[in-house]
Structures are given as structure tokens and as C-alpha cells.
């Protein structure tokens, strides 16, 4: 059972207080997009053994969605941040680089 900190209300809570929402930073493809783009948007996901970016919701708390960067191998949580962004913040990416030099995840590194 993970412990996560909600970046909105500042509560550090049990995993049961939150709800996982799958992979973060997925770009939506709507009408007019190619079959491949739309298919990837709906179904193609990363499955890393290491650095990963996820969506979470503080469902039994303030109700807000947020993002979490964590390691699926060691369960280390690198940080949580706003859901209102299309990419991980640069300071967090730098902090991850300190601990996991050379990490990559999708187009980010």
C-alpha cells in the first residue's frame, strides 16, 4: 500500500485514499486523427520496470486529479505534481536524473 502526497491539499495519505488512473501525459486524439494515432491513444501504454509517470485522484479526499512520478521497481516516489500540465516539471525530471541517471520514459528523459 503506497503512501502518496496530494499536491493540492497537501495530505500525505494511504493508497486506499487515492485511486490510480493509469498512465500520465497521454495526448487525446479525436475526430480527424488517423486510425493508428487513435488506436495508440486508446490502447498503447508504457509498462516500465523503473521510472513511470501516473495519474492519481485523491478520491476520498479533495477529489483532485494529480500526477505521480515513481519507480515501479523499488516503489520509490520521486514526486507528485499538478494534473494541469502536459509534461513532467523540469525540476522533478532533474531530481529523477540524480537518482536514475539516463532514465527515459516516452519522449521524456
Amino acid at each position, binding site marked *: *500500500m503506497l503512501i502518496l502526497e496530494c499536491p493540492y491539499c497537501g495530505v500525505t495519505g494511504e493508497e486506499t485514499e487515492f485511486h490510480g488512473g493509469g498512465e500520465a501525459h497521454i495526448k487525446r486524439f479525436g475526430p480527424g486523427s488517423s486510425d493508428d494515432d487513435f488506436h495508440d491513444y486508446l490502447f498503447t501504454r508504457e509498462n516500465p520496470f523503473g521510472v513511470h509517470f501516473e495519474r492519481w485522484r485523491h478520491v476520498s479526499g479533495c477529489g483532485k486529479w494529480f500526477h505521480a512520478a515513481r519507480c515501479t521497481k523499488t516503489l520509490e516516489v520521486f514526486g507528485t505534481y499538478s494534473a494541469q500540465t502536459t509534461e513532467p516539471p523540469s525540476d522533478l525530471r532533474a531530481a529523477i536524473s540524480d537518482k536514475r541517471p539516463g532514465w527515459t520514459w516516452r519522449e521524456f528523459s
Partner: protein
Amino acid sequence: MSTRLASGGRLIDRSKQVQFTFNGKQMRGHAGDTLASALLANDQMMVGRSFKYHRPRGIVASGAEEPNALINMGEGARFEPNQRATTTELFNGLVAQSQNHWPSLEFDIGAVNTYFSRFLPAGFYYKMFMYPRAFWKHVYEPFIRQSAGLGRAPKQRDQDTYEHFYHFADLVVIGGGVAGLQAALAAATAGQSVLVIEQTADWGGRAPVDGVADDSTIDGMDADAWVAQAVAKLDAMDNVTMRTRTMGAGVYDHGYLLAYERLRDHAPEAKGPRHRLWRIRTKQIVTATGAIERPLSFAGNDLPGVMLAAALRDYVVNYGVSTGDRTVVVTNNDDAYRTAIVLKQAGLEVPVIIDARPEGGGALMAKARDMGIRVDTGRAIAKVKGGKRVTGVQICAQAGEGSVLEEIPCDAVAMSGGWSPVVHLWSHCGGKLIWDDAQAHFRPDPSRPPTGASGEGFVIAAGSANGALALDAALADATAAGVAAARAAGGTPDDAPPPKADALGEAALAPVWMMPQGANIKLRMKSWLDFQNDVKVSDVQLAAHEGFESVEHAKRYTTLGMATDQGKLSNINGLAILSDALGQPIPVTGTTTFRPPYTPISMGAIAGEARGEIFQPLRRTPMHDWHDANGADWEPVGHWRRPYAFVRNGETVNEAVMREVRNTREKLGLLDASTLGKLIVKGPDAGRFLDMMYTNMMSTLKPGKCRYGLMCSENGFLSDDGVVARIDDDTWLCHTTTGGADRIHAHMEEWLQTEWWDWKVYVANVTEQLAQVAVVGPNARKLLEKLGGMDVSREALGFMEWADGTLGGFDARVYRISFSGELSYEVAVPASQGRAFWDKLMEAGKEFGVMPYGTEALHIMRAEKGFIMIGDETDGTVIPQDLGLDWALSKKKEDYLGKRAQQRSHMTDPNRWKLVGLETVDGSVLPDGAYALGNGVNENGQKVMIGRVTSTYHSPTLNRGIAMGLVLHGPDRMGEVLDFPGTDGKTYKAKIVSAVFYDPEGEKQNV
């Protein structure tokens, strides 16, 4: 025979007698006994039968690792199977029954399996039960059902209570032996909160028992005295909490720990909960969980009377119980000598110590020899003689193939194959192990602990759980562990030296995985690895031979370690045999995965207080009590209870439903619609947002108007529906299905927060703020006009319009919408007024023939009108186009959730099944979910199906069966008759018709 000795027993109180029964036989023990020690004291060595061959099984261990002594405990509402006799504390009136035998423990028919054991090798079930196919149902399955499972399932509701307990501590020490106590002492100096738990009723672990044999001391005290002062010190510290009878059950992510406290198992008549599940959050965990002795693999090692050497000594020292009069000790290490010494001290005979090591042992061997015990080195047991009880052993050379050198009569065998650290809790959350060649065991790798949120380790193993088996090494290791844990949790503990231990040194062990080393196949087929599941050395070798090289595959193929003891005794021996058969070192083979809980915990403890009425809170509408008092036949809908029908005296439920439909169609019906979801969507961008959420155009809806809307997932499938009303320029009220309110609210929030976060929209779920009543039927308007207060005429409030006002003095919002096809108003009033409003409607409606109706009448009336129901016509694979709802898909909008998905080729495939009405030829009711038969068979040889029933009812209005269904090319096949085979063997014939069975022109609702 096994018996109670005249003296001794550090844990029992000989002045207190305890009565109990085993298989109906009256027996006596003492306070402080376990059921196992008391059974042995009553010469009850045989306690059960093994799983596969039904071989006689005796007590083999003295703690949680016991594989054999599983019993049915208690009776009636306190009955519980698979309880371990070795961890069951004796109490007055205890009732125990042995398991897995028929007709009796002494004489068991299934034991014939043992004579066929040659034909029941590893993988037998997989190989045997494949063919012929027909045998499965009539021969194999009944056979397996008859023989599967240990114990019996309880039949009555558990009369005891259980609870969950939330606890926070900086540090938790698991294990109350000398290592655990010392780790706690070292850590607690930092002043942080420390919880110390011990699974048994007593502090101290093994050290006090071992000290009896070798006169070891800690800080000059004997172990019992040292334990007593350590416990007293810890008890006196405000920051330390101590709990016995509390097992560390599982270690989980980020320092989450489950502990299982058995409060009343030893005192069933006491007050309070029986078990307590501790849900603990901690920064650091010290696992001082000890080690478990390994059996040796020699022929006949499963006979009752063969016991782990340390267990045999536990029974003598702790309970004053001897397992036999003449005990042969067989070992590959020094520790078993302690057992021989203890037996000799107790006046019992030890005819020989068989030591597999050519050179034998160290100081302990010398001590045993000084006491006059014969020690044979380089020797092994070729075979144990006996049937239901050991009668003797045949001795051979360990280096040979088993030629018998000598036969020695005895009635007990104490075996020791070395010690394996209890690494379960270390491993639960990802702690890694290393192979210790010198001690021949896996122990925690301190450089690869389970890691927490910070990425740092949060578990530290201590004492013998960390491979520090000798007393002085264990205490030093525990001291270091305690200090390290306190520091890791942010504290500054004192740097005191470990207590000084004085004990006899031990010679190195020699790994012995098979006895003798070159045992022939006949011996290997009688050398047990897993006593409970009947897995032998030969089975693991066969698995390796047949290609099951992965330890996880070999485990499942042979069932090694899959019994209720989870392989605590068998795993290391089994994987050593597997490694040998594969010709690779043990660490290359590795271990199977350790999963929580450490030993089984009760279902009651897992459930805690969540049972009966508080299992899940029930949601009640403001009118719930009225329904309950007026014949409601309740139906669960989400967390709500809704009346399925209001049943009158002398009526069946079905008769009530038919009456409710007829009355509503002919006169006047009331439906409690309060459970429907009601979401307020408000803001300058609310219209734009709803255009994305719904397939319809909602932004163009005029204030005062209503529109039926559909919601799809981004994958295109229908997910919810309901009527949307525009309240004012920037406010809409969206109705959802009863089960959908929370889900759709979350769905809207998700899109707002994570995709269109710059849109100015708020969503509020006001479902429980309002009570809503559907007033339905030809007399609906008459009733509302009688209440008075607002104009509800056709002209003032047209179909699909809404208005605010008062009705009979109640503040009301009235929607002119219909889900039944009748003239219908849905009236929302504040929830606090709901019951009064309902009462008023019932009272005022009398003269118009008012009756309440339930969900089934609602369903029938909507089906008569061909209205779809989410969850009936949809199942997550259905798109609006399948249901003929193309009219509700806006062509003008560039985008909405699901639009892109619905453009994919398989969504536009003309061969998708489409909604039609179905009318049985003979007027009967089609079976729900029945499939329509096509022609021929598909590529799998199955009959081709061309449709299925989604809703089916008897319509009292039409007095015949009506149904809706999805059918291949359905709308183009009107009038065709399809065959629907039922599970009752009959084939139902139904004609494809329009799904609108009643009032197709819509004249009734629009008056």
C-alpha cells in the same frame, strides 16, 4: 509411547488441570499446554492423515511451521477447520477433531492410495484427468470433489466478533525472542514509538529451551532470567508497546504492516473480539522472526514419531512431555545434540546419535559423549521402520546407497537438517536473499532490502532470521539492527554494546539433502519432502526429468509447498533436490515467492467489523420507511434499495407487478425516482463541456426545455443516459441512471481536471438534496391540479419542458418527461420534504386511483414503449447505432466523447447486431439472455448465433410476452421468426417486430 514426565515444563502450570476432547475422547492437560503438547501427553501421536495417500500423520513440529497436526476446532457457530494443534493454546472444554480421514483416523479407506503411490506420481492429476472428455463430469470431478480439501467448511454463521485496529509506530519489532527483545531495547533508547509483537503467548523464543541443554548465559543470567528483565525494562518504557499472541502477518509497500492478534482463542468465553487485525504504518521494521529447522530426507521420515529435533526438545523443556522412551537423534549439525542432552537429562533413553558428518560435531558432541550417549559419525538412516508409529531405524553409511549396517529399536526419531531463517516478512515486499554456503540456507541480503517511498530500505532482519544462529552472534546482530532501525527512522539511539553471551561454540554443519547420499529409488519414493501434500524426493526428481526446471513450475507440478503450511519445512529441501537433479547450484534455482500472510489468518479478522448491516452502508431515499411499511419487495440498485414492487396481502410479487402496470396505464401511479442521479453543471463553458460529454447537442437547448441525452465512453460504447434540463444561461441539470450518479460525476470531473482544465465549469452532485416522484398515468394532471399552486396544463407545461413553482405548498420543480409512455410529471422537492410530499400525493390521489409502483413495473412500461435501459440493452459492447439511436448523435458537432471511436470500421460494420422487438409466436415469455440460432456452425464447431435477448417481460397491457433483442440485420428482417433455444430444453419461436409495442404514435404521453 509419548507421555507427561513427572517433572519439568517451564510453560505449564501443573496445579491447573484442563479438560478437552479429541475425536470425542476425554483427555487432560495443564494450563500452558498447547493442544499438541497435551495430545502427546495423552499418547495421541497420530493426529491426521496426509492429503493424497491418507498416510498416518503425527505431530512433527512445535510451532507455526507444523504441517501435519491440523484439526477441526470447536462446534456449531464456533467451528473452524485447519487449526494448528501446535499453535492452539489449550483451554477447558476444547473440542478437537482430526481431519482428512474416512471413516476414522485409525482406519482410513483412502489409505489404499499409498499402495498405488507408484501410480500417483508428480503431475498425476494433470496427466490422468485429461481424457476421455466424458470421464471428467462423471468420474474425475466427483472423485476430486470427494477427496479435495482438508477439513470441513463451517456451516453456521460465526458467533464471534472481530475488529480492525489502526496503529502508527516509528518502529515495529516482529518477534519476541532474545533477538527481538534486544533489538527493541537498543532501538527504544532513541525515544521513538516502538511496537514489539510476538506470535506465541510467551516472550523469549528458543533461547531458554536451548540454554537448558548447554547452560548458556546472557550477561551472566540464564536466558529465562534475562528475558524477564528485558521484558520488564521494555514494559516500563512509555514509548514501547508490547503484544504477545500477535503475529506479523504481512509486510507491504511503504511500511504498511498487518499483524494478527489472537485475543480469545485461548479463552473463548472471555468478552470482546476474538481476533484483531492490526493495520500498521511504520517507518522501520525489524524482523526478528527466528529460524525454522529443516527435516532430513530419509525413507520413512513421515511416520508418526519422527519429529524435528528442536520440537522434541521443546516438548520436554516447555511442557514436560516426552515424545518417546527411546529416541534416535539424526543430524548434520551440532544443534540436535542439545535434544539428545535434554532427553538424557530428563532420564530418557537415547540409543544413538547418528551424525552424517564424517568428523561429527564440536563441544556439544563432546558433552553428549561425556553423558554416555553413543555417537556414530558418517552414518545415516536408511529407513525408519513402523506403520502408524516408529518401531526402529536401520542405519547405513551416509556416503553409500543404503546397505543396512544395523537396526536399532526406538519409538521416536529426532531429526535435524539445519536451520533456515524465517525470511518471509523480509521477502513479502521485495527484499532479496543470498545463499549462505557455510550454513546452507538463504538469508536476507542486507544490500537489497524492501524499499519505501524515499527509496531507502525499511526492513532490517535481526538474529537468526538474519542467519546469525549462535546466541552471541544473534545478540550482536540484533543490537546493530535495533540501532540501525532507530537511526533510519530519524532517531539517535544510545551506542551501548550488546549483552555478553556465554555459550558453547558449534562446529560447521554439512549440507545433507538426501539420506543416504546415494539413496536408491525405493528409498527416495519413501523420503518425504512435503508431509501434508505427500511430495517425495522422487516426485521432485521426476518433475525435473520431465522438464519443469523453473522452481515455480516444479512447485505447481508436484504441489510441493502448496499445502496450508506453505512449504515452511519443505521448500529448501525441495529446491535442493531440484537443483541437484538439474545439476546447478541452489542459488541459481532460487526460491518460490513468499506471499503474505505468514500463516493463515481468519476470515473474520480480514472482515473485521464489516459484516451484517455495517458491511456496506445502505442508501435510503426520504420515502424509504414508507415503502418498507407498505409491502416493498426490495431490490438492490447500486448502494440503494428500491422497491421492486409493493406487494399486497394475498398477492404474489408478480401479481403485484401486473397490477401496478395496469393501474398506472389506466389511472395513476407514483414512482419514487429519488435515486436517479442529479448533477448540476454550471459555468460559462458548461454548454461546450456538455456537448463533449453527450452525443447530443446540449448547448442549443433552451432554458425551460429538456432533452434526452446519451453518454459514450471515449471508446464509443454507451455508458449512461438520462434527461438533461437547461436551468438558465449557464446552468444545466443532468439526470443519470440510479447506479451512474457517482460514476458520471467522476467521469465529468476527470475530463474537466485532466483535459479541459482551462474551461470554466463546475459540477456538483445534488442527488441526495432532492426527493423526486414520478406522477404517471391518465390522472396525473388531475392530481397535480388538485394540489394546486402552479399551472401544469398542456399549454403552460408542454412535453419535455420543466417549470419551478409550488404544488400543494411544496417548493417543486416539475419536469414533463415520461419513461412509461403515459402522461407523466417528475416532481423534485427538497429531500427534507420528500416524505411529506409523498404522503400528500398518496392522500390526494385516492380519488384518482393512485397506487405506488416499483422498479419492475417501471421496466415493463419502458419496454412496452421500446425505451432502452442501460445495463439491459447495453453491456459495454453496445454503441448507440446498435440501438437505433442515431437520432441522438449530433451530426453538427465536430467532436464528442466516442465520436472518433464510432468511425472505426468495426463500429460502422453493417453486420453489427441491431435492436428490434421480439414477440413470441405463442405469447409466452422468452428466456432472458437467450440466443437466436442461425444456420450451420462456426470455425470452432459451435452453432452460429445471430442475436440475443436483452430484455424480456410479460406485458399485462398486451397480455403477452414481449422482448427486446439485438439481431443480425434485425431492422431489415421484420416479420421473420427466429428460434431461441432455452436452457430448459425448449426452443422458443419469436417474430421480429418493432421495439415499440405500445402507443407507437406517442399520443398518450402528449396530452
